[in-house]
């Protein structure tokens, strides 16, 4: 067992972990942050995307020991009391069908809008190409991201 300490959504977490424990399982099973979804487990679907020190990372391919000293953000930590512009726009545009892929998309959309405040459709495709939606609701998702960008600019 290895002692690790890291921040999750602003909160300091201290845990004993086995080196083989994966970040996705620490977040879901031990910290009950179930927005982080298990999709493919091999880095192809983006459902487990979280931010580590502000950069998108796949929690299914990250060892928890490796997160020691870092800062993790999941959908639960994006906003304290209200919804973010991205979340609001996703609801308004119906950018959700079964909802399983949604947390990964929301994290990547937040990251995209921090890097590119006024994205084109090409930017959106590029940033979201690592997230798969098996209901194939991409059109509404792209529309939601464009709308969220407008909300953010006006805020």
């Amino acid at each position, binding site marked *: 067992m*290895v002692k690790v300490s890291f921040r999750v959504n602003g909160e300091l977490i201290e845990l004993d972990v*086995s*080196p*083989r424990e*994966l970040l996705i*399982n620490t977040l879901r099973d031990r910290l009950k942050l179930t927005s982080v979804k*298990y999709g*493919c*487990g*091999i*880095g*192809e679907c*983006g459902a487990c*995307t979280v931010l580590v020190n502000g*950069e*998108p*990372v*796949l929690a*299914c*391919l*990250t*060892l928890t*020991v*490796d997160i020691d000293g870092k800062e993790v953000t999941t959908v639960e930590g994006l906003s304290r009391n209200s919804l973010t512009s991205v979340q609001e726009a996703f609801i308004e545009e119906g950018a959700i069908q079964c909802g399983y892929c949604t947390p990964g998309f929301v994290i*990547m959309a937040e*990251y995209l809008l921090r890097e590119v405040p006024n994205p084109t459709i090409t930017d959106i*495709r*590029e*940033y979201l*190409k*690592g*997230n798969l939606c098996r209901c194939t609701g991409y059109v509404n998702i792209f529309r939601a991201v464009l709308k969220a960008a407008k909300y953010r600019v006006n805020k």
Partner: protein
Amino acid sequence: MVNTVYSVNITARNTHIIPFDFEYYEPRSLDEALELLSKYREQAKILAGGTDLLVKMKTRLVEPRVVINIKKIPGLRYIVEEGNYVKIGALTTLRDIERSGIIQKHTPALHDAVKLMGSIQVRNMATLVGNLCNASPAADTAPPLLVHNARVVALSKRGRRVIPLEEFFKGPGLTTLEPDEIVVEVLIEKATRGSSAFSKISRVAVDLAIASAAVQAEIDVNGVVESAKIAVGSVAPRPLRLKLLEEKIRNLRVGSSELKEVLGVIDSEISPITDVRSTAEYRRHVVKVLVWDTLERVYRRIRRGV
């Protein structure tokens, strides 16, 4: 992103967990890492980005007794120019390369390749050196580095070795690296003349290549090839320079029927297989189209002065 060249049905495996224990080390210096490698040799695997290694561990393609995480070693993440070389450190991610003006200017083919690789998430985690050491025949960074005469710098307790990339790949998943060696740097020769480009074809945006091609060439104002280095991926057990074609293509014009004819020699240089991504037959066809297109892109870049 695992490569099914290893022909294991990964969907049949439980990828929720890593199903075995291992000894885990986080060396704080290269000396410490080399010490561990010389002690554990074949039993140890080096962890950097983890996008290949952890997938292989989940699916039990590899079951290392020891995992050496090198991410805590300072000073291994850089892209610098030094004289006629560009140097890239072992912990440099694909995203670092994508964002580097130095790479865009001096090795445009490598810049093309990383932009087409995986998702932003994967590029943010995966390292260039990891992509090379994984030695997939479909490693997109390999053809661009081959045409830019790249070399890898390997360290062990026994000393330092500079290996031309052409001599680095042995076969799927196999390199000429010794068990106690670690790649610390990639050395790329700056092209003084001409330009380079990389193209690939894959089934969907985030996927391994069905076939890929990189070209570094000097082409005159009339479109005549003065010299060219050409490398291809996913059409042989390892990424490959096409030396025969490089000879035959000299003094031919880009886009000419003569050029189209000599592309036939590629058949004698490659040995593609049929797998889930493509048939061997299609690979033979499409790799020629890729070489043709990539030459045209290089020519356009030269004319634009890129």
